[in-house]
C-alpha cells in the first residue's frame, strides 16, 4: 500500500467503513495483550532485590508513561495534518486522542507516586519525571478545555491545533527546565524511578507485552472515539441544515 493510499482514509466515509471492520479485532488484541502482559508480570515474575514486589508496578507505569507521551505526539501529527491538508478526520482524531492521553498521564502519575512512596517515604516528590508528567497533564487539560469552549467546529480545530503546536514546543522546553530545576544541569539522576538501564530479561518480556497492550488499547479507544466524533459532527451538520430550511 503506497503512502498515497493512506490519504483515502481522510475521507470520513472510508474511515468509518474501514475502522468499523478493524475495531473489533484491535479491541480483542488489546485485551489479550493487556491481560497476558499484566498477569504474566504480576504473577510470574520475581521480586527485585532492591525494590521488592513494587517492581511489579513497572508493567503499568512504563506503558502508561510511554502512551502519555505518544498520545501527545500523535495529536501533534494530526494537528499538523489538519493545518496543512484540512482533513476533518485528522482534527477529530486529535480531539479523540486527548482524553485517552490524559488518562494515561494520570495513570503514570498515580502509579509513579505510589511506587515512590515506599522508596521516598512520601506520597509525592518533585522528582523531575513526575513533575514533567504533571505539567503534561496540565497541557492535556488546557487542550481539552479549549475544544469544549468553542462552538464552531472549524474554529475549534484551528485553534486547538495551533495550541498543540505551541504547547509541544513549551512541553519540550519545560522538560529541560524541570530537569535543570531539580537536579542542576550536570548531576546524574538520583531519584529517577524509571526502569534501570538494563531491565533484566525476566522483566523485559512481560513488559513488552504490556506495552503492546497499552498501545493497542490506545489505538482501539482513539478509533472508537474518532468514529463518535465523526458521527457527532455529521449530526451537527444535519441539524444545522435542517434549521436553515
Amino acid at each position, binding site marked *: 500500500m503506497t503512502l498515497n493510499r493512506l490519504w483515502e482514509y481522510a475521507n470520513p466515509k472510508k474511515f468509518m467503513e474501514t475502522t468499523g471492520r478493524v475495531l473489533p479485532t484491535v479491541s480483542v488484541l488489546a485485551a489479550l495483550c493487556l491481560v497476558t502482559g*499484566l498477569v504474566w508480570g504480576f504473577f510470574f515474575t520475581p521480586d527485585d532485590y532492591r525494590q521488592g514486589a513494587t517492581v511489579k*508496578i513497572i508493567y503499568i507505569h512504563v506503558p502508561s508513561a510511554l502512551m502519555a507521551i505518544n498520545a501527545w505526539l500523535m495529536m501533534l501529527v494530526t494537528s499538523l495534518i489538519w493545518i496543512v491538508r484540512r482533513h476533518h478526520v485528522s482534527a477529530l482524531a486529535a480531539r479523540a486522542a486527548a482524553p*485517552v492521553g490524559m488518562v494515561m498521564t494520570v*495513570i503514570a502519575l498515580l502509579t509513579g507516586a505510589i*511506587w515512590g512512596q515506599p522508596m521516598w517515604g512520601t506520597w509525592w516528590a518533585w522528582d523531575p519525571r513526575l513533575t514533567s508528567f504533571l505539567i503534561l497533564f496540565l497541557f492535556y487539560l488546557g487542550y481539552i478545555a479549549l475544544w469544549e469552549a468553542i462552538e464552531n467546529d472549524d474554529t475549534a480545530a484551528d485553534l486547538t491545533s495551533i495550541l498543540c503546536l505551541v504547547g509541544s514546543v513549551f512541553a519540550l522546553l519545560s522538560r529541560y527546565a524541570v530537569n535543570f530545576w531539580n537536579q542542576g544541569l550536570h548531576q546524574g539522576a538520583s531519584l529517577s524511578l524509571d526502569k534501570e538501564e538494563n531491565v533484566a530479561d525476566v522483566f523485559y518480556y512481560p513488559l513488552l507485552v504490556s506495552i503492546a497492550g497499552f498501545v493497542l488499547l490506545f489505538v482501539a479507544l482513539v478509533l472508537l472515539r474518532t468514529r*463518535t466524533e465523526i458521527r457527532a459532527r455529521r449530526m451537527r451538520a444535519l441539524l444545522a441544515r435542517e434549521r436553515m430550511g
Partner: protein
Amino acid sequence: MMPDLGKYAETVLSAYAVSLVLVVVLVWLSVRRGRKVKAELEAVEKKVGKNG
C-alpha cells in the same frame, strides 16, 4: 496463587487497582458516548430522510 508481595502488598495492589479502574471507566465512558451519538445520529438521519 497470589504471589507473596510482602510488605509492599498495599502499594502494588493499590497501584494496579487505581489503574484498572481508570482504564475501565475510560473505556466505559467512550463506549457509552459512542452508542448514544450513534443512536442520536440515526434518529436525525431518519427525520431528515422523511422531510428531505
